[in-house]
């Protein structure tokens, strides 16, 4: 009960898409169930961010605009975050109970 005042944990993921290159790719990350996950995207092309959790989430990425998507995951598992058009996996998040 010492951490009552501490802000809840959250996972921040910064994604940069520039000239067809994605940073990061295939990153391995950890999170907890119901913990907020925030993905910030800076991109020079339009794309779709697919979060392969249960259930799936899809976010539209617009070019040349700082964007932020937030979600949380209820069912533990390995969740792939994927750029649909570029066909790249940004990160795999191990969501622990």
């Amino acid at each position, binding site marked *: 009960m010492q951490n009552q005042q501490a802000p809840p944990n959250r996972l921040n993921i910064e994604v940069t898409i520039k000239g067809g290159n994605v940073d990061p*790719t*295939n*990153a*391995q990350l950890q999170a907890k169930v119901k913990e907020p996950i925030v993905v910030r995207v800076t991109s020079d092309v339009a794309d*779709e961010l*697919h979060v*392969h*959790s*249960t*259930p*799936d989430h899809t976010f539209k990425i617009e070019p040349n605009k700082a964007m932020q998507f937030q979600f949380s*995951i209820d*069912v*533990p*598992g*390995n*969740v*792939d975050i*994927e750029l*649909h*058009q570029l*066909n*790249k*996996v940004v990160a*795999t998040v*191990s*969501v*622990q*109970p």
Partner: protein
Amino acid sequence: MSDRPAAVLAHGLGGSTDLPIPYAYALIGAAWALTFTFAVVAFAWKKPRFDPGKDGRALPQWVTSVVDATAVRWALALAGLLFAGWVAMAAMFGKPENNPVAGVFYVLMWIGLVAASLAIGPIWRAVSPVRSVYRLLRMARMPAGLGYPRRLGYWPAVFGLFAFVWLELASPDPGSLGAIKLWLCAYIVITLTGAIVCGDRWFGRADPFEAYSVVASRFSLFRRNPNSGRIEIGNPFDHLLSLPVRPGTVTMLAVLLGSTAFDSFSASPDWRNFVDHYAHSVAAQSAMRTVGLLVFGAVVVTTFSLAARATGGVDRATKRKLPGLMAHSLIPIVLGYMFAHYLSYLVERGQQTIIGLADPLGHGWNLLGLGGAQVNYVLSLHPSVLATIKVCCVVGGHVAGVIAAHDRALRVLPSGYQLTGQLATMLVMVGYTFTGLYLLFGG
């Protein structure tokens, strides 16, 4: 919706995949597998015990009568045809998003069929829609066909199974409804044409689902007495030996084991980085995964065949037969690893698929009151229970495989070579199990 494929849609179904099992679980499982293997080789019985001809405990006669009743057979065939029709309707008129066809294909017809066959026997033979159509054609006085070329053995089924795992694990877009429809159409055409040309033997040797279902059913408690035809409960180790050894038997099992291992492996970041680095187009990525899948299958065939032959005291002709004679011992290993790998899919995606089938066209139908049901993620919500089950499946399958191989070695190897002759096979099995646990642990 865009038409670009999604490379990592897990098995074409989306959603998350299982968490890796904890390191300690993998280690404990590996230790047990190793200990047990050498205990079996060193201390177990020295005279063969299992015999496919041994009588089991016969079930009451009415069980056999009901199972064999013409009315029951037609009812099962009709149920299979109705289900196929329902799925075809979903495939043709349903929406591409959240269509239950992918779940029917990748979950129910794959791991669901294994579970059903292991529980009650080769069920696909009774419900296969193509077999039913063939039976109707035969009733309409179609001639019986030219007979099945013996030399082909299980090879057509091997290709069918490879085509299935290729679509699931290596094709450009496993989740595409169009690709699944195309696959199923090709399956129906090939299976039906083959049966019309070669007769009904074609189903048992060439229909991938039937071959697969028969393989899984060989480790079932239930079986038919080989002499009286009565259904009985028997020792599954006696039943395993009734696996027909035909050309392609070892390869068929290797496709099943290798593809499951490749499925784990292809999710690893190292493999994904490797593919991203060397393949820049969707086709090139698919080609690389195809090679990976082939390599995994080839490694299983090669290691198992070499190990089974690694014995002294037998002539060359016998040596050539040994991999086939030992092949049944791979069945428990394949089953254990498949359940370890796909159990949460069967339980959770299975529920999702059945709920989806209650309303396949998205019209708000509520067949059997399932429309509003929610999936119970009982396994995913308890990862340590799931990890324990997985390790038990892998180690249990390994132990059963080792016992079956040991007993078979006592029967087919000459005295003096029975202990040394089975060592290589045991080591290869330990290798499969360690690799399996390592992949489940996530590398």
